[in-house]
């Protein structure tokens, strides 16, 4: 019988190794799997390569991993915000590598990774500093850049509700990078508010099919009466 539920975020991330590549969902605090990130700070795996849209927007996001010196390289579109100081300090020391990727190219590279597309051509970023060193090619008279797929060892994602198989639904703009990141990792760990039995989620409404989800951690902030303010 399929059972993907882990007892805690700590157990779900326990096997993570130094040097792993990790996708972290969320857009600022919305849809951020903050309990999984906190568990990884505790667990301590180092030399991580992290792909996440924002890194300085919230203190309980990727910023926490950077401050704890667990990150070797970070790919993101928006490396600024109130908690980016520790990133800047490490960039100046040269202990961390930063790759800035246009947001749509970041999403599409992850989507390509999940969909078995090795590389693709996009007009985004052509003739810019972020396109330097990339292979260029013209299609329909317009310059495009070749961009490579991103695949990862792990993805940390946040969803609203899961069923036992791992089908996921989200709340509102909590989706953001979560559905696409779920597809591109060898082990996708979803932090959810609630795990229900199969059949309890309308099959027409599932956003992330169970095939993409390997581990579930149930954390019920609503049930605990906590108000979620991640801004």
């Amino acid at each position, binding site marked *: *019988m*399929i059972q993907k539920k882990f007892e805690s975020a700590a157990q779900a991330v326990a096997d993570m190794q130094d040097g792993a590549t990790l996708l972290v969902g969320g857009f600022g605090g919305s849809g951020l799997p903050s309990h999984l990130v906190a568990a990884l700070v505790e667990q301590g795996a180092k030399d991580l390569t992290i792909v996440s849209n924002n890194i300085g927007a919230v203190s309980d996001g990727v910023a926490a991993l950077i401050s704890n010196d667990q990150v070797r390289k970070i790919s993101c579109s928006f490396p600024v915000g109130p908690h980016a100081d520790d990133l800047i300090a490490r960039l100046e020391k040269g202990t961390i590598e930063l790759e800035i990727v246009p947001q749509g190219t970041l999403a599409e590279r992850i*989507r390509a*990774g*999940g*969909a*078995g*597309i090795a590389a693709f051509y996009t007009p985004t970023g052509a003739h810019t500093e972020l396109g330097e060193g990339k292979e260029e090619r013209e299609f329909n008279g317009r310059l495009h850049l070749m961009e490579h797929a991103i695949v990862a060892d792990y993805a940390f994602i946040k969803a609203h509700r899961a*069923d*036992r*198989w791992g*089908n996921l639904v989200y709340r509102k703009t909590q989706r953001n990078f979560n559905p696409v990141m779920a*597809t*591109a990792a060898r082990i996708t760990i979803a932090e959810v508010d609630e795990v229900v*039995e*199969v*059949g309890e989620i309308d*099959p*027409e409404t*599932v956003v992330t*099919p*169970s*095939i*993409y989800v390997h581990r579930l951690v149930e954390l019920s902030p609503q049930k605990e009466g906590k108000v979620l303010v991640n801004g």
Partner: protein
Amino acid sequence: MVKEPKETIGWTMPELASKVAHDLEDGWFVNLGIGLPTLVADSIPEGKEIILHSENGLLGLGPKPEPGEEDWDLVNAGKEPITLLPGGVYFSQSESFAMIRGGHIDAAVLGAFQVSQRGDLASWKLPNTLLGRVGGAMDLTAGAKRVFLFMQHTSKQGPKIVEECTYPLTTPGCVDRIYTNLAVIEVTDDGLVVRELAPGVTFDYVQERTAAPLTLQADNPSEKVGV
């Protein structure tokens, strides 16, 4: 090489389906090709959760509907009415093939015209025909983690397991295991290895009907396996 006479020998197709179903692991996501492989759906042992994928856009394929209960908006890749299990979901063809191409399908169980000793598969087009029916066959065989064939050991034309495919290829080197009415054969780096023989079928009998060299699995009790 001997042409297969029209006789019942070895496993029946439902027996073979049970054999395949037995080898699928709990929790696997499995795509069953059009035709014979769909028999596997009815053979999954009680208590084992195999989630079946249909490339037209669903996971969690259930049994055929009762007569009169057909819903023509709920069909499998063969365009036959089916049902959805609790936990099943719908999605688009592009999402479906993202799953396939992205390596998320644990096993594809497919039919074949020919398979070579290196696991090259020919399954989409007969030689010298105008039309081929590729469907999702190339995507499935290029993308699934494992490709299992489910087929009659021979056709009217003779052996289907050959040294080199003469029919147009679907995907080279993609086949992991071949289930036929006569035997279960692994495609290994050392060639084709017979893992199991059907009851009453000898190794020589299988070899005679196979146009590529076979070896018997080393830890196989003997040629008498299954007799």
